[in-house]
Every structure is written in C-alpha cells, then in structure tokens.
C-alpha cells in the first residue's frame, strides 16, 4: 500500500501538467452534464412543485358568463372545481411601462383547489379593501414590492390605485412575461368597483381531475356543455411548458455536448493512461522485479489514473451545481440524475483506465526488454512521400505517424470528436447570428407592434406610415381559437391581407394567397396531427373558422403552436378595427429609435412593443458554446500531449541514430512534429467535415422537436470553418513543437533503453 502510494505520488509529480489537464477535462464535462440534466429534469421545473403545493387544477376554462360549476363537477373524471372567478383585463402602469393584467376576484377564504400560496405578506383581507395579492413572477418582472402601490387602468379608462398586500405562488398559469397577462388577485367587491361592467370580464374555472391524462376527454365534454360560452381552454401541460421555457433547448444542447464530450474525454483519458503505461513499461517491469504482483500493479495503475478521473468528477459537481443555481436560478439539483451522472461517469472513467491498467500489469517482469514500436516497411503514405521527393524529415515523420496503429487511431479520433463538436457549436452560433441578422427569416419581419392606446387605429396607422424608417404597416390581430376535439386553445395570428400577405418565412408548401388559407408552425401541425394541404376547423369566440393549411412557417413563438393567416380570413368582429399594427422597418433602421420617435409623435398615445428576437432569449447559449469549446479544446490538448509524449518515447532511440546519420536538430524536430502533426491534421479535418455535415440536420431536428420547425439551421460559414481549422492545427502544432524542440536539442544516449 505504502509503496504503491509512494510510486503514484512520484509519478503524478512527474507529469503534473497532464494530470491537471485530465482533472480539468473531466470536471468540465461533468459540470456540463449536470447542468444539462438540471435543465432537462422535470424535478427542477418549478411547475411540479407549485402544482403540488397549490393543489392545482388540471384544466382551466375561460367563459363569457358564470358557468354551472355543479354541472362541470359532475363530468366523469372531475374530482373538484375551483371558481368560477370573475376576471377583468386591466393595464398596469409602472414607471411608464404598461403591462397587461388579469384582475381576478378571489374570496377571503382561499379555495381548496388551485389556492395561491402566499410567499410574502398575507392573503386578501376585507379590512384592506384596496389590498391585492400579486403573482410572484409578475411582481418580480415589474419590481412590485410588498406595501407598494400599483396603478391600474380599466377598459373604461378609469384609474385605480391598489396596494400590494401579498405576493403568492400559483400554478394557474405560466410565469410572466412568457405568459401574459400577469395575474393579480383582488377581493370580489374591489373588482366590482374597478370593472363594474360584467360584459368586459370573463369567468375562470379550474377543474381538478382524478387522472391528469384525461384532460382531452374532459375538455371536450366541457366545450360541448358550455358551447359558445367558452373563450379559452388550457391544461396543465401548457402551464408546465410555459414554465419550462427555453431550458429544454439549452438542456438538449448541453446534453449533446456533454455526452459527446464525455466520450471524447474518456477517449482522451484512455489514451493518456494507455500512453503513460506504454512509456512506463520499463519502470513497471522494474517494480515487478522488486516484488510487485500483477494484481498490485493493475490496482496501482487503476488507482492512479482512475483517481484523476474521480477527482475531476468531484471538482465538476460543485461548479455544475453552482452554475445551475446561480445562472439558471433553479432552487435545487435533482438528486437522482446527479447520482446517475456521477456514478455513470465514474464507471466509464474506470473502464477507460482499467484496460491500460490491465495491460500494464501484464508486462513481463524483465525490465531489460524494451517495448519498441512495431517496425517494418515504410507505410504507403511514406513511400508516396518519398516518391514525390518530399524532404526526408517529412518522410520519416509520415512513417512514424502510423507505426502504432491503435494510438494513431485514438489520437486522430480523439481530436476529430472535439473538433466535430466545435463545428456543431459554430453552427449553432451561426444560426443565432442569422436569427439576429435576418429576423424576417424567423417570422419577425415586423419588428415593432403598435397598439393604438389613446388614438384611433387610423390615427395610429397614419403616424406609423409617416415615419421615415417604416417600410410597411400591416394590420394585425391575435385571437385564441378552440380546437374541437383538442383539450386546448391555440393562438391565431392574423396579420396583413390575404392578397398582399405579410412575408411569413414559409419553408414548406406555399404562402397563403387567398381567404381561408393559412400557414402554421411545426408545433401546430404536430399538435393537430395535420399535414400541409389539410383543412382545420376552429372556433374563435363561437364563430367557426375553417382554413386550409397551405404551408409551414418558421415559428419561434409559443412552441410553434401558432396559426398565421390574413386578417380577411377572420370574422370582421375580431379584426376591425385591427388590434395592432405591425411595422416592418427599412433596412438598418433601429427599432428602439423608431419606437421613441413614434411615442414622441403620438404624445405617448401609442403602446409600442418591440418584438423579441429568439436569439436574444437564447443569448445564454453563446456563453455555453464558448465554455464548451474551451472544454473540448482541453480534451484535444490532452490527446495531443499524449500523442507527442508517446511519439517521443518511441523515437528516443531513433533520434540518436538520426543525428548520427546527419540530420540537423531542426530536421529531427521536423520529423517529430510531422509524426504528430499528420495525425492532428487528419483528425481535425475529419472532425470538421463530419461536424459541418451533421450540424444542419441536428439543428433542424432540434427545431422540429421544439416546434419551431426545420429550416432554421445555418451551417458555419466557410471562412469561420477555415479559421477554426487553421487555429486548431496551428495550436496543435505549437503544442507539439515544444517537446519536439527539447528532444531534438537534448543529448540522447543510445543506451537509455
């Protein structure tokens, strides 16, 4: 034991750099995997906890009139009901910002189902009739504090001052601003004062089911029962999806990088351990001659190389946990996936170092027998190099490169895998850049949405059209449509006319050209299980809407579950006057500038919203890409160090001979660098080629599953690829150069082996 410990300590000290590199590599990979798992794991999705805590409702129904709750509760599968609660739309004005709010009347006694859980302050109290409770994400987004006042404007234009008495969590809807409007609970009496007109409010009822999977069946019954009363239906799935946000995309990306990175790291580890063992065979034989048994040697090597991996795992857990905690603001890392990652990585690491350890332990104990690389004929490549009269250093290097086949393969492959991942990362980067540079390709031709607030729609349109930076103004409206036979509502977006359509980025099929035609996002096609060319029946506020889907668009909003059509395809009551105007700006115009100009021109009479580019929401991906490229570069570096150490060891004897034959130190150096450099170039070129081959498909696949739809992917530009390849090869050669230079200058005794 002690002897082994002494040997391990000495060996680690002798190759400190390599050991540190191994630890860092594994730590980086484990951190990435943990972050990925946290992002993907439902347990960290706040929905589950909130739903359990609030005893949430599975199905939510918005109706025009107060529904018969007794009848709803009688539906098969419904166990309890919450509400109905009268809800009125108001606008909250906070520091010149306006936010849509649903003011929901709630009794003083919190309901059994879907009861908001007060996180701060207290619940509604009749002693404070102006007191309200604000949903937590909404309060945070608008900076509302306990005890502060909020001013809301009712549809009638009347202003009311309310006081925040409490902040509560709820699983009734998703988080603001991904889910609008924000939610504020008030006493019923107060709501009657703010919005006395019953016709301007709706009723919200929540149903708790005994089987969460039965939402579809129940919602159909509800729609049939309430018929035209139903405004909107949604289920717990949409709430959960809204809370998940873009974490899934990020998680998938990280998981992909993490798993492939793990494979690469394990290769690097196996390569490093194998190379080290190979270069230590003489020492190992000496140890055996001293009385180390085969088993002792195997466990010695396993412990030494495995300990580095395990240390890396331990070091990776903490940053992985910190990243998820700090950056992603999730309260906890789920224990099961964490343990699975740690155990899985540990197992993989031990297997990876176990093979070289086993091989090392089988060294014959006669230390005089050196382990020489397989000798023999010049490789075909080297003969070719001779044939075209390349300098001798290159020929010798080319011969050396492949003299040990397995390490040569491991080196090339070990560099190809990180390079492939780096190429994929660059592709994701290019796709995000493309989102930003060409918002019209993701359906964001109109960068500003203008809602006439105090002005008439025509005045608003006129103002917008007169602005020099505005290219075109499209009338638009967004309505919720019920899908018969589905448990839920979908968003219908009408913008522009059918004849002069808004330029949606149609990637499949064609653009709509007539009334009754529409285009849809991938998410909607998947949800309704329809193909392009199919007809869909929808119901918008009781009015039937029958459209034919003629094309698929790239749809970054609402998981792609959006139907887009011309305003003339909707009933006039929904689109006249238009709810908003979509402004397409001239090239190079700054949306913020136009917004300020329009606000000034209208005397603050307009409400102008900037469309958020998906790339802005996904900006954190860039950080992830940079971090992962760093980890992958470490992996490549680890492989490279192993390769050059092995190359040096194999050729230590040759060096003396080469020098004796008359090669200058420079030529000797060139020989060594060619040996590793050739493998480096092969690995990097193959990695880049495979990466750029799969990157488009991967991103499109991700787009498809996330509902955005295929057709968003952009491969990295050729220039970017060339720069990446040149940088990688250059860095690799620079790394290989240092030991080669030292070796070429050193006095190598012929007898050293």
């Amino acid at each position, binding site marked *: 034991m*002690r*002897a082994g410990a*002494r*040997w391990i300590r*000495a*060996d680690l*000290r*002798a*190759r400190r750099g390599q050991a540190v590199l191994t630890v860092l590599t594994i730590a980086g990979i484990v951190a990435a995997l943990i972050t990925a798992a946290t992002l993907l794991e439902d347990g960290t999705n706040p929905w589950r906890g909130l739903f359990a805590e609030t005893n949430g409702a599975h199905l939510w129904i918005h109706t025009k009139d107060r529904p018969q709750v007794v009848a709803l509760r009688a539906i098969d599968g419904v166990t309890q009901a919450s509400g109905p609660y009268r809800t009125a739309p108001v606008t909250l004005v906070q520091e010149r910002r306006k936010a849509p709010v649903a003011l929901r009347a709630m009794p003083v006694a919190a309901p059994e189902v879907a009861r908001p859980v007060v996180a701060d302050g207290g619940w509604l109290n009749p002693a404070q009739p102006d007191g309200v409770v604000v949903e937590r994400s909404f309060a945070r987004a608008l900076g509302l504090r306990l005890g502060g006042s909020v001013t809301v404007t009712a549809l009638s234009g009347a202003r009311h001052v309310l006081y925040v008495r409490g902040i509560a969590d709820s699983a009734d809807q998703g988080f603001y601003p991904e889910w609008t409007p924000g939610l504020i609970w008030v006493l019923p009496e107060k709501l009657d004062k703010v919005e006395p007109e019953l016709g301007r409010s709706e009723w919200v009822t929540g149903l708790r089911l005994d089987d969460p999977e039965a939402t579809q069946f129940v919602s159909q019954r509800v729609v049939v029962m309430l018929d035209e009363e139903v405004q909107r239906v949604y289920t717990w799935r949409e709430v959960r999806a809204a809370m998940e946000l873009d974490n899934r995309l990020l998680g998938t990306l990280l998981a992909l990088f993490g798993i492939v990175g793990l494979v690469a790291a394990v290769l690097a580890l196996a390569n490093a351990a194998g190379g080290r063992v190979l270069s230590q065979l*003489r*020492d190992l*034989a*000496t*140890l*055996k*001659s*001293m*009385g*180390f*048994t*085969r*088993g*002792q040697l195997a466990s010695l090597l396993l412990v030494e190389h495995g300990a580095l991996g395990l240390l890396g795992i331990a070091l990776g857990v903490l940053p992985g946990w910190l990243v998820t905690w700090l950056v992603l603001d999730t309260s906890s890392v789920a224990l099961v996936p964490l343990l699975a990652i740690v155990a899985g990585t540990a197992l993989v690491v031990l297997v990876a170092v176990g093979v070289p350890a086993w091989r090392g332990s089988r060294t*014959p*104990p*006669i*230390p*005089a027998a050196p382990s020489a690389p397989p000798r023999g004929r010049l490789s075909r490549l080297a003969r070719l190099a001779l044939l075209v009269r390349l300098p001798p250093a290159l020929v010798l290097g080319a011969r050396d490169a492949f003299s040990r086949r397995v390490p040569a393969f491991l080196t090339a492959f070990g560099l190809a895998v990180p390079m492939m991942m780096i190429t994929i990362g660059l592709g994701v980067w290019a796709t995000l850049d493309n989102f930003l540079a060409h918002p019209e390709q993701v359906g964001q031709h109109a960068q500003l949405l203008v809602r006439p607030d105090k002005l008439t729609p025509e005045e608003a349109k006129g103002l917008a059209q007169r602005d020099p930076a505005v290219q075109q103004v499209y009338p638009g409206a967004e309505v919720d449509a019920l899908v018969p036979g589905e448990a839920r509502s979908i968003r219908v977006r009408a913008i522009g006319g059918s004849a002069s359509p808004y330029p949606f980025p149609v990637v499949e099929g064609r653009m709509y050209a007539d009334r009754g035609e529409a285009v849809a996002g991938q998410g909607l096609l998947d949800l309704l299980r329809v193909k392009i060319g199919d007809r869909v029946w929808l119901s918008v506020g009781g009015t039937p809407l029958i459209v034919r889907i003629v094309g698929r668009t790239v749809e970054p909003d609402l998981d792609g579950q959006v139907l887009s059509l011309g305003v003339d395809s909707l009933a006039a009551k929904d689109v006249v006057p238009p709810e908003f105007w979509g402004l397409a700006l001239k090239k190079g115009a700054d949306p913020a500038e136009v917004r300020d100009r329009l606000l000034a021109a209208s005397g603050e009479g307009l409400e102008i919203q900037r469309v958020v580019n998906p790339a802005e929401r996904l900006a954190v991906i860039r950080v992830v890409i940079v971090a992962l490229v760093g980890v992958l570069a470490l992996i490549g570096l680890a492989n490279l160090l192993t390769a050059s150490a092995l190359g040096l060891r194999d050729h230590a004897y040759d060096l003396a001979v080469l020098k004796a034959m008359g090669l200058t130190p420079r030529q000797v150096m060139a020989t060594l660098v060619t040996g590793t450099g050739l493998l480096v170039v092969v690995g990097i070129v193959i990695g880049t080629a495979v990466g750029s081959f799969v990157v488009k498909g991967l991103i499109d696949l991700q787009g498809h599953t996330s509902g955005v739809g295929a057709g968003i992917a952009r491969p990295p530009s050729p220039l970017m690829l060339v720069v990446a390849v040149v940088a990688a090869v250059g860095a690799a050669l620079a790394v290989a150069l240092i030991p080669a230079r030292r070796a070429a200058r050193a006095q190598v005794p012929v*007898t*050293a*082996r």
Partner: protein
Amino acid sequence: MTVLKTVNLVKIYQNKHVPVPAVRGVDLQVDEGEFVAIMGPSGSGKSTLVHMLGGLDTRTSGEIWLDGQRADTLSESAWALLRRKKIGFVFQFFNLVASMTVADNVELPALLAGASPKVARERREYLLDALSLTERVEASPAQLSGGEQQRVALARALANKPSLLLADEPTGNLDSRNTRDVLRLLGQVHRDGQTIVLVTHDARVASLADRVVSLLDGEIVDDGKIARRRPGRGGGAGEVIDLR
C-alpha cells in the same frame, strides 16, 4: 546451508515455432555466503539463467529451490511475494524508477515488504550512508552518474536484506572507475555475509567471486573455486587469476 539449488533447469524459447534452447539442464548449488560469478560469452544463456533464478522468466523444465523451498512451481504472484523478501536484483541498466527520488527508490522495496515508513527510512539512511550517497538523497536518477545510479540500485536490492542478490552484468554499462567502485561495494557486501550470484562476461569482474561457473550454449562447462589471493600481492591491473 544451501540458499539456491537448481536441478536440470531447462529453458527453451519458441521462436516462430522453432524451439531455441537457451539453458540446457543446469544443476547449480549456491551455499549461504557464497559469491558465484556466472561467466560466458554473449548468448550463452547466463542472463536467462539468472532471470529464471529470480522468477522473472519461467522455466521450461527442471527445479528451482530457494532457501529449501521449491520455487519453480510458484505462480507469478507468488514469485513476486518471494522476491520481495528473499531476492534483490541489480540490472545492467540500473533500472531506477525515473520519476522517484533516490530516497524513494531505495525505500520502495522495504515499504512493499510491509515495513513502516520509519523503518524503511532508517534502512535507507544506513544503506545510502554505507554506499556514500547521502548527499544525493533527494536527486532524481537522471541527475546521477552511471556509477551513482548503480550504487543506488545496489542499495535498493539490499533494502530487504535478501537471502540472495542477483546481479545481471552490473558493471556492463560503467566505465572502469565506476566499475571498480561497484565491485568494491559488492565485495564489501559479500564480506558481510551476503550471498551473491553475478552474471558477467568480464573475467576481471568474475575474479572477485569465490567461485566461477562458466556457461557455454546453455550448459555448465566449468565450475571452480578461485584461490583467494595471497595477502600482500596488492590489486592493480596485473592481477592473476588462478583456477583450481
């Protein structure tokens, strides 16, 4: 008392299915405190023989007895355990563990045999002092001269007070000055009662031994004790070797 005994020891290598006999029926007996030199030209099988005696190589047939215990039937691991306690090796190319300091190299066998770090350190201090290497304790093998490396290797071989010291061309890689130093040390160790089997092709080295066994083509062709040189006939280059 007999420390080592071999009975009809045979080693046949298989070289591409052609049997190549290296050792052909060697009967050898080494008593306690004896210093035996095995001499022979290159390829005479002397290294193979000494490797088999230490269990580094397996025998094809025959018997090896060590301290009255049959050793040739032992497994590789059992041989390793035996080597720890009873056999010290000195090789031609020193074979110090490159990543370890001189001190660690010498302490390693003692630690391996289960000695406490304190005992191992004391033993190391004693040995390095005896071999006048005390100043080089923290040096790495690469910083030592060949003679110094071989002295460290000798210290390492003696760390566990083995019953048998096997030396395979210990001076084969040294200049004459260092050769003299190492041989002087071997002689000293022998005078302290250490049993030594030394392989060499150098007659001057062999002259140090009590007994020279000559090997040719894997067979013992001569086995004789050397007359102790008379006192007064001092060293120098003109030593005469008498075979009796």
